[in-house]
């Protein structure tokens, strides 16, 4: 059986280092398989978070050869096994141990986003009517598995550590889903501009590139939100029109 070497980051928030492990690999294996084999055979104390092994729970996010990916969805056949495969934890969140990071910041952020507030029910039985076409647009955003790979790659968090001023691409997707929902009546634009830092996004599309659910984060969620914010706060002509309308 063939073997391959995996250079895995071992450590915690105090620091750590890469350690090489060589293990047997076979056809069809994904990176998570190799990591679990190493855990079973060579490093019983290796911390790794995983759950579904099907790309649906979003637990096994890591960086493989420097690129944010789900370990369970990265086949070894996609990688060159001539050199050690580098596996490290996400860089935008504090380390807990080895490949496991503390992503709880994301859950705190989510709580601060204004909740879905539907308009009055359309029918007397308390139900609503939506056209399929309107639903289609937001459907894409609902595919998110909260793997936080987009948050991890975004340089505003990763390099500039603006966690206190910027909610990150995952939550722009979440906000877009609510903002564009035909039933929702809430206005999140001021929040997006002032406290959630949509202006920090400089549209580099790194988030879109790493999303395992292929959500077109930048083009379909962030830019449309930026345009809505511009409508409301940065368009002098629109402001003038609104002023006239109010006066009438």
């Amino acid at each position: 059986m063939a073997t391959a070497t995996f250079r895995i980051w071992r450590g915690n928030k105090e620091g750590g280092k890469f350690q090489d492990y060589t293990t047997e690999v076979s056809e069809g294996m994904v990176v998570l398989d190799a990591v679990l084999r190493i855990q079973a055979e060579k490093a019983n104390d290796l911390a790794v978070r995983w759950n579904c092994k099907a790309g649906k729970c979003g637990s096994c996010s890591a960086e493989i050869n420097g690129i944010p990916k789900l370990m369970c969805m990265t086949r070894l056949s996609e990688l060159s096994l001539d050199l050690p495969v580098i596996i490290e934890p996400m860089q935008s969140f504090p380390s807990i141990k080895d490949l496991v990071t503390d992503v709880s910041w994301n859950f705190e952020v989510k709580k601060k986003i204004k909740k879905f507030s539907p308009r009055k029910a359309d029918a007397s039985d308390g139900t609503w009517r939506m056209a399929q076409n309107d639903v289609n647009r937001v459907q894409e955003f609902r595919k998110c598995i909260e793997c936080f790979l987009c948050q991890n790659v975004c340089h505003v968090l990763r390099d500039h550590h603006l966690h206190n001023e910027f909610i990150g691409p995952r939550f722009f997707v979440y906000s877009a889903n609510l903002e564009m929902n035909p039933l929702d009546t809430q206005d999140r634009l001021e929040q997006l501009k002032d406290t959630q830092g949509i202006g920090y996004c400089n549209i580099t599309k790194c988030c879109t590139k790493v999303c395992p659910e292929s959500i077109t984060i930048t083009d379909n969620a962030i830019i449309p939100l930026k345009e809505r914010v511009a409508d409301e706060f940065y368009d002098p002509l629109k402001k003038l029109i609104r002023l006239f309308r109010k006066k009438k």
Partner: protein
Amino acid sequence: MSNTVIPLQRRKFAQTTRQDGWWIQPLAIFLGLSAFIVYANWAAFQGEHYHWGPYLSPFYSPELFGDSPHSMFGARPSWLPAWVSPALLILWAPAGFRLTCYYYRGAYYKSFWGDPPACAVGELRNGYRGENKLPLIMQNLHRYFLYLALIFLLVLAYDAWKGMWFKDAVTGEVSFGVGIGTLVLITNVCLLGGYTLGCHSLRHLVGGRLDEMSNSPVCQKAYSCVSCFNARHMLFAWLSLVWVAFSDVYIRLCSMGVLSDWRLF
């Protein structure tokens, strides 16, 4: 936002564990855009060889004042300094449109500013304002450049149309025809159309701003049309950029007598 301190290490400039050629794309974009900027500036300052026969270089269109038959308001006024070519009077609009375009923004922030140099690659600078504060907050005015770009598109379509009417040098008679230059100008307006009609601000304007587009079928149709171009925005951004420069080169070489325009019929 939760005011927590997230203990994270900052990576150094260009530090990454990426094993692929992450620098190739930003470098290619840097070289491509720089080459265009250098050529466009050179061509814009020339003030000559920008028209030939029925063709007018897109860098000089619309020609507000000038000595070519394409000039809209006649000859150059005397108060206009000699170095101000007809191109310099108008190029700020398409330049502003591209400069504030969402695609180009993402591309040049990476290639020219290194903000970041590439995805998951360490940055040079600590401080970061993004588009949240001046000066880059001004990028939000992109929509105004879009309005101008739509007018330019009509002008360039008219130029392509005019490029089909050739004047006989001897009799002065005007007749319909198609030369290589005509095809160059038609391709130019098509590619620019593909680029402009895929603009994110246009996508927002025609329907994206609505939550219930189904109530306005026209908006819905326009939105899906623009979305279709929008999905290929990067492609059209590059094709139209290269072609607009090529159109200028072609007309310039014809005008200088280096090339002779081949009349197809």
